């Protein structure tokens, strides 16, 4: 069975390479026969990848421990959902998942053929198939998931306790899907440049660059990458000891950087589609986003950057050379093509005014790229320094917080501006008029917060700016609805409904901005006002933390499949009434003889009460780590709204 999986991978490699060559040759020589052949080979490659994934899944489900990968990531006591998730728990499996997503996406773009200019489409398919080929090559040469043990072990090692969390089921696949989806904007942007070379003039290029499928693909990529990051943050938050929801670890940063660049790309794409500007930006950013996704894989899997959290050895894995080769190759090709087509990528309109949406978008892109570059620099700083000076030195979290704060706040301010600025030109008076109510609301909120006792200047400023941006989005919507109701003699509610139906893309985007602001509330609240204390209690004793009286009622020991659970019951009292209970626990995993701490969280709209059973002594006395994270729930609510808003913006228009 395992051999069949390997053969399927081999077939995938051969057919990907054949297909890429045939696509390239077919379009250069204008031979549709070759393109047809390439198309069927591409489908065959996709089928081969799917087959090898299914075979690995089958091996996992049948717990064939003779396969090294199955042995390392499953055990017979493991719940079935986590056996499935073992598919992406290891390096081999996660590369296979990457390849599978690439194959599915390629198959989808194959079906989209009529919606693209033929030349651009063929070049893009050639690029996608080459990327697939590289991943198939990695799987075959250095990360073969189908390697066998000499003998068949009786029991597998199983997943790490920390991985037995619902986060494991969804975080890696969604993140990989985001990475793989960025291949499409990358391939079609490069292909647009190549197709432009074939065409007689800039108009062919313009046609190639102005495609609505590109917007949908890049929005989807952005959505999945963002959700993947957010789910990872949630996982780190509920799994104790991973340092809260964000710890600026290289592995986390690696996924944030392409997302930030992808955000800048979306904005450039918007300006390009609406106004014919930012052409060079959007091409360069599409290429950068995907290259950074590959870089993220290189960071997590290649051992090229020493992560303090995720590994100590600086030994470079062989896979690093393949990925580095892919990055260098695509960067070199992209730079050459961009240079070649630089003067054809002219903005259709110039004459932009300082106070216009274009310049605000330019500023937004610059800030996003600056932020991404700063984080990237922080990541590669140790490696760079070691190469240049031979000293090993790191940047700690203080660096990231200092850089992130001001840039993120400027971006929030820009949301407020961008919403009310018009294309081409806005007079200062118009701007002030549109912003007067939001400013009043924001300043009032600032005063109220100050009176209520919020004295940290950073947090105060952040809340005021968030209120300003939220206010400007709401004010713009209300104003437009009011104008529409006057013009069309509709009721205000009817006008609002009609407005959001007719401008679904715009208001979907507004919803996404509101979601980002909501997440900002969660981030500022939990970062600025988090408290943490320790309670050392014997059973029956009580302690008080921030208005919560916590009583350590009892400790029970439960035997579960494969583990013993030590569950402490903490009664929560407000005054003398018991309002609830939290049950933090320590689990002993028998096969690994390892302890794992499971936190218990009480979430309200105001704050999260977070209890971890840090230490459990022989006499049942226990040390609890009790934290209060104000407003953090809005980070997750914002994530939900982000998903919703993006769906609204993505939903296809009804056929006319």
């Amino acid at each position, binding site marked *: 069975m395992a051999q069949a999986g390997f053969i399927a991978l081999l077939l995938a490699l051969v057919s990907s390479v054949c297909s890429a060559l045939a696509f390239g040759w077919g379009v250069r020589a204008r031979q549709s026969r070759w393109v047809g052949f390439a198309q069927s080979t591409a489908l065959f490659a996709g089928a081969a990848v799917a087959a090898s994934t299914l075979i690995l899944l089958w091996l996992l489900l049948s717990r064939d421990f003779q396969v090294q990968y199955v042995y390392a990531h499953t055990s017979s006591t493991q719940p079935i959902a986590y056996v499935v998730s073992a598919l992406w728990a290891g390096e081999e499996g996660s590369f296979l998942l990457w390849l599978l997503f690439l194959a599915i996406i390629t198959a989808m773009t194959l079906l989209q053929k009529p919606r693209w200019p033929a030349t651009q489409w063929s070049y893009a398919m050639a690029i996608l198939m080459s990327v697939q080929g590289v991943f198939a090559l990695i799987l075959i040469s250095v990360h073969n998931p189908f390697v066998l043990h000499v003998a068949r072990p009786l029991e597998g090692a199983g997943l790490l306790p920390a991985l037995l969390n619902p986060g494991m089921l969804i975080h890696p696949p969604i993140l990989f899907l985001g990475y793989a989806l960025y291949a499409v904007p990358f391939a079609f942007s490069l292909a647009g440049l190549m197709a432009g070379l074939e065409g007689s003039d800039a108009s062919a290029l313009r046609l190639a660059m102005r495609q609505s499928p590109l917007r949908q693909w890049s929005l989807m990529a952005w959505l999945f990458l963002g959700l993947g990051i957010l789910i990872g943050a949630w996982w780190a938050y509920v799994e104790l000891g991973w340092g809260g929801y964000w710890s600026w670890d290289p592995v986390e940063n690696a996924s944030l950087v392409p997302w930030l660049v992808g955000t800048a790309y979306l904005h450039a794409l918007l300006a390009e589609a609406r106004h014919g500007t930012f052409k060079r930006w959007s091409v360069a950013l599409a290429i950068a986003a995907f290259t950074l996704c590959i870089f993220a894989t290189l960071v997590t899997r290649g051992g090229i950057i020493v992560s303090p959290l995720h590994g*100590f050895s600086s030994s470079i894995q062989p896979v690093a050379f393949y990925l580095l080769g892919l990055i260098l190759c695509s960067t070199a090709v992209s730079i050459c093509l961009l240079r070649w087509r630089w003067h054809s990528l002219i903005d259709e309109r110039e004459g932009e005014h300082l106070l216009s949406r274009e310049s605000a978008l330019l500023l937004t892109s610059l800030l996003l790229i600056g932020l991404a570059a*700063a984080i990237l620099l922080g990541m590669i700083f140790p490696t760079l320094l070691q190469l240049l000076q031979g000293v090993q*030195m790191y*940047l*700690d979290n203080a660096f990231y917080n200092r850089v992130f704060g001001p840039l993120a706040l400027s971006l929030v301010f820009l949301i407020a501006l961008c919403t009310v600025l018009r294309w081409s030109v806005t007079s200062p008076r118009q701007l002030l008029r549109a912003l007067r109510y939001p400013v009043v609301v924001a300043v009032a909120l600032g005063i109220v917060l100050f009176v209520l006792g919020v004295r940290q200047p950073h947090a105060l400023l952040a809340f005021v700016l968030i209120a300003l941006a939220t206010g400007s989005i709401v004010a713009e919507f209300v104003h437009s609805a009011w104008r529409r109701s006057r013009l069309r003699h509709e009721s205000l509610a009817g006008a609002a409904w009609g407005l959001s139906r007719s401008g679904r893309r715009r208001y979907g985007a507004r919803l996404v901005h509101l979601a980002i602001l909501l997440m900002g509330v969660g981030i500022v609240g939990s970062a600025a006002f988090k408290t943490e204390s320790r309670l050392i209690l014997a059973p029956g004793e009580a302690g008080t933390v921030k208005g919560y009286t916590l009583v350590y009622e009892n400790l029970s020991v439960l035997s579960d499949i494969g583990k013993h659970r030590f569950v402490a019951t903490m009664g929560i009292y407000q005054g003398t009434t018991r309002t609830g209970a939290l049950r933090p626990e320590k689990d002993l995993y028998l096969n690994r003889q390892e302890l794992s701490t499971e936190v218990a969280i009480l979430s309200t709209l105001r704050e999260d009460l977070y209890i971890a059973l840090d230490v459990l002594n022989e006499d049942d006395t226990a040390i609890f780590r009790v934290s209060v994270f104000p407003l953090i729930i809005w980070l997750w609510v914002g994530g939900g709204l982000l998903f919703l808003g993006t769906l609204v913006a993505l939903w296809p228009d009804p056929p006319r």
Partner: protein
Amino acid sequence: MLYTVLRCNRVRSQKRIQRIEKAIPVMTTQYQATTHSKRWRRLGGSGIIVLTIVYLVASSTRGATVYALSIHELKARGSDAYGQGVRVGGTVDGPSIAWDAQKQVLEFSLVDGQEALEVVYHGARPDMFRDGAQALVEGKCQDTGVFVASKLLLKCPSKYEAAATQTADH
């Protein structure tokens, strides 16, 4: 009646087109005259923003750097290393572990080859902390030669590196 309205409309729109067409050459010349300076203005504006970001990044690195040293290198630095942010890695020496659960003080030796370093860590004992564990400590070396760690990171052998560690923040 309807015909007249339509006709009027057409005449009006034709007039509008003529008006726009007349204006186009003016617009183009204006455009050509301004485009150069606008381009420079835009480049200048972007340049200022980029420089601001670069300054922000550069100034943020100050005081945020941590040296990564081996135990041997740390000892070789002697008194120079006192009070400086340092990160050191090694293996936890089992017999040396002394854990005071009441005060939450963890004392142990970190071994790297021949050299050993005494470490004091205030905080909870991580779940995976045991003899032979790979540990990374971040903190400062005191003049007594004892390393006071503010961060203790552990690694356990696994392929899924993203999950292979547990950290405990002070």
